[in-house]
């Protein structure tokens, strides 16, 4: 169970120390990570949820790792996306650039990219597996530092500023979270989530703790109105970094928030708090989509679309009241998985277009279809998933959202969801139609041909997001198995 954390960590160290064959090491780590996660899934389906006491120390003394349905699905999402990102990043950095200065710059960036990316992967896996509220803080911090450094890699002044702001926001979020943990420890004296679950009593200390932790995590998840840092950061980073930030990193903090609200502090959550989150989510969906429609640059548009799509995750909050936890988890998981795959594909396409044309101004994207057929195809499919059209994973998520909102007679959420998908249609196809224009004087530009490593990962991620809906019974099965109360304990060694 520990291998998804250890493997990337070792790979990161090796990448940094050896500084040679970095791609081979990272690729090996990503593949090994995927295999480890698959094995974990297999174990979960066989034995149900599992727990591992690190070093053999029992909680409350020791730190525990836990794998259950949602955690394993998030790990799978990270592992698959991570593998695609690794391959894509290789293509990105080895893309031949005529300008010599830029080429050396790429070499330099690559040197720092691989160790940081591996560190980030370890942090994310740790976040999904940890069952200890302080250990979770540590993983959050690892993610924050690695992500902010990655965002700064591009070296442009705009990205420097954006990533610095990102670093401050992330640290602020982590510190707020840490303050919450301190409050919690003061009132309960427990850090293990499973034990905490049974000892949560309503009191001012705990409520303050929950509020602080939530605000910290919301800041990291970029829920409107705390989203201000996201678009510039995601849009100005290097293409593989944008994919990491938008596809994976925001999901990490959201996952933690959701777990705190729906598994640990369930008794403290009031309907008005849930409605508040839902309202913010609704505002995020509409505001993000409208902003995405108004952007002039492809990467900014995709970034604002992230703001919008994150809103769907929060609309699930008020709809969860009437349902059992598996229902809630399934909504969130499908939206998150679908978004992770589709958004990675979109940022990969945006990066490929940028390398090909040297810019990503939407009005000058004419005729890209002719020169980049595969990325354009991937863009279309990923767009379909963002719009929530069947049979994509986004459709399953939206279907569940709509069903819950109508069965609980909260039809206004349904209206927001539907309007959101129509707005998504407008921003997706605004770009799509540009790709299809064939200007009279069009000739293929003389930039170097794109490596297949830049094109195929995007298409594969897009196809996964599309067909995940058809295979929806598998994630459902994992969720259902992971939801049983019986927990198998695996020894993590001797004390």
């Amino acid at each position: 169970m520990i291998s998804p954390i250890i493997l990337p960590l070792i790979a990161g160290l090796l990448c940094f120390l050896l500084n040679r064959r970095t791609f081979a090491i990272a690729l090996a780590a990503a593949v090994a990570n995927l295999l480890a996660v698959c094995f974990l899934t297999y174990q979960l389906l066989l034995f149900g949820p599992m727990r591992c006491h690190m070093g053999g120390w029992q909680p409350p003394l020791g730190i525990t790792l836990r794998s259950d349905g949602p955690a394993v699905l998030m790990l799978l999402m990270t592992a698959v996306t991570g593998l695609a990102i690794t391959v894509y990043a290789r293509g990105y950095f080895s893309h031949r650039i005529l300008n010599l200065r830029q080429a050396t710059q790429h070499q330099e960036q690559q040197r720092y990219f691989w160790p940081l990316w591996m560190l980030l992967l370890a942090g994310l896996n740790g976040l999904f597996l940890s069952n200890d509220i302080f250990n979770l803080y540590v993983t959050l911090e690892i993610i924050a530092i690695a992500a902010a450094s990655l965002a700064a890699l591009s070296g442009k002044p705009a990205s420097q500023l954006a990533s610095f702001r990102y670093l401050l926001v992330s640290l602020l979020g982590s510190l707020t979270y840490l303050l919450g943990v301190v409050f919690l420890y003061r009132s309960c004296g427990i850090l293990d989530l499973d034990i905490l679950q049974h000892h949560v009593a309503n009191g001012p200390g705990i409520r303050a703790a929950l509020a602080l932790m939530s605000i910290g995590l919301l800041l990291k998840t970029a829920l409107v109105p705390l989203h201000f840092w996201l678009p510039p950061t995601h849009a100005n980073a290097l293409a593989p970094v944008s994919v990491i930030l938008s596809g994976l990193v925001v999901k990490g903090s959201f996952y933690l928030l959701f777990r705190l609200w729906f598994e640990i502090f369930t008794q403290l959550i009031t309907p008005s708090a849930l409605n508040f989150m839902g309202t913010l989510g609704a505002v995020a969906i509409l505001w993000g989509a409208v902003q995405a429609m108004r952007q002039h640059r492809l990467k900014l548009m995709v970034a604002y679309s992230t703001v919008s799509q994150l809103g769907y995750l929060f609309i699930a909050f008020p709809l969860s009241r009437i349902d059992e936890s598996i229902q809630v988890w399934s909504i969130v998981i499908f939206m998150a998985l679908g978004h992770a795959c589709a958004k990675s594909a979109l940022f990969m396409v945006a990066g490929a277009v940028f390398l090909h044309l040297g810019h990503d101004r939407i009005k000058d994207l004419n005729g890209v279809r002719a020169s980049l057929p595969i990325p354009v195809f991937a863009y279309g499919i990923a767009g379909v998933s963002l719009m929530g059209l069947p049979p994509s994973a986004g459709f399953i998520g939206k279907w569940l959202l709509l069903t819950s909102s109508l069965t609980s007679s909260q039809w206004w959420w349904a209206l927001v969801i539907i309007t959101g998908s129509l707005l998504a249609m407008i921003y997706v196809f605004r770009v799509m139609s540009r790709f299809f224009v064939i200007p009279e004087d069009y000739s293929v530009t003389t930039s170097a041909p794109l490596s297949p490593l830049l094109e195929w990962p995007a298409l594969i991620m897009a196809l996964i997001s599309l067909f995940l809906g058809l295979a929806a019974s598998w994630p459902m099965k994992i969720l259902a198995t992971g939801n049983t109360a019986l927990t198998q304990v695996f020894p993590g060694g001797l004390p």
Partner: protein
Amino acid sequence: MNWEQWLLPAILLSSFIPGIIIFALPEERHRLRTVLNLCGSILKIVLILVMDTGIYFGYNFEIRLSLIPGVELLLNGDPLSALFATLSSVLWLLTTVYAIGYLEGSPNRSHFFGYFSLCVTVTIGIALAGNLITFLLFYELLTLTTYPLIIHRGTEKSLRAGRNYLIYAFSGGAVFLFAVVALQTIIGPTDFTGAGFSPSFIDTHATALALIFILLIIGVGVKAALVPLHGWLPQAMVAPAPVSALLHAVAVVKAGAFGIIRIVLDVYGPQNLLLLGVLPLLAAVASITILYGSIRALQQDDLKRRLAFSTISQVSYIALGISLVDQPLAVIGGLVHLVHQGLMKITLFFCAGNLAETLGIHRISEMDGVARRMPFTMAAFSVGALGMIGIPPTVGFVSKWYLGLGGLAAGNWWVVLILAVSSLLNACYFLPILIRAWFGKQQGPWPDELYSGRFETRFMLLIPPLVTAFIVIAAGAVANAQISPLAWVRFIVRKYGL
């Protein structure tokens, strides 16, 4: 698993796989592409005929895939799906032949034929859908696969048309999705059983069910071009002629009309709708659309635009017939018009495309004396136009006859009135074209003569309209025979127990 279950996926794959291969083919492999296209189309027709025969002898074709609890994909072959699937696949083959001739030498053909094949896959998917969710799936996919075809020329004008099409179609799709979810929360699974839901729901949820019916009709009405949701159709005329044929006769508009039939006959069921009392609304919208479309068609000089408004008008015959659901004769008229309108309209669009491709004629005012230059094309056009007016022995007469009989049987004299006025308007906008073409005198040279050869135009452009024109007359003349669209529709109506 046995062959009955695998037949339906095989029908879908018979055009899906060629489509995917065509995407991957390099542009210049046009011979291989043509072979793939034609083999796929012919294989599809054969498979669908096997299905038709099976359905006639009472086989049950069904395959299910459960996604999550409450969301299930279901393909199901029943007589009604057989009607639509057979129509689409036969017209598909002809349109493919026509498109191969039409696009000879133009750029981006692998792209075009790839989407073309996906589009027919999706249309057949609509025909075979066995519940509302599957219908919704293919309905949305149809929008996606037709969009690249509409903007195929890549001009600003076609992009504008494409954008409008998307906005109309996806808004309709969104309304439809909302209605489907709402309906499922009330009545549970929405399989097309042929009987509708249990009447006990009406006691508890009458208003909600009536509202949902209206929303569902709005959802499919966008594609069926019911007024006031028709705005995208005339604009989509900028697309190449085979695509227009596809929009008007094979796939898109038909999918909308087919959706109306499914909702009325299968999802709600005639009895429930009579209880809810929402059908007069549908009848009124259909009647307004019939008259409005015809009147607007009168004002157009652009030939394709005139045909587009004529489609808006004619497709609503289907909705009108279905809205008189307690009259079996009217239902027969509506259902059979699904086939008949397709045959006639595709003939007209093929001919309009021939005029544009051969002589550069786009406007009716340029058509003087064109029949002397292109007698076969104009003969086919005349058959289609006379069919639209409803002159025996064409198929158009058969549809109108049954619709009128159905209206009279219920004492709905207004149906006959609408049919009469509409036929008069049809005559007003089609006869002048025929008179100009056959008896007019050529005014100067043709606008842009592109072809001069042994035949009046390219061989592959000439064959499809002649075949469809022949069917228009033949199917009308032998409408009472054992094998005709009308006989099959009677079989359907018996199945539904009307």
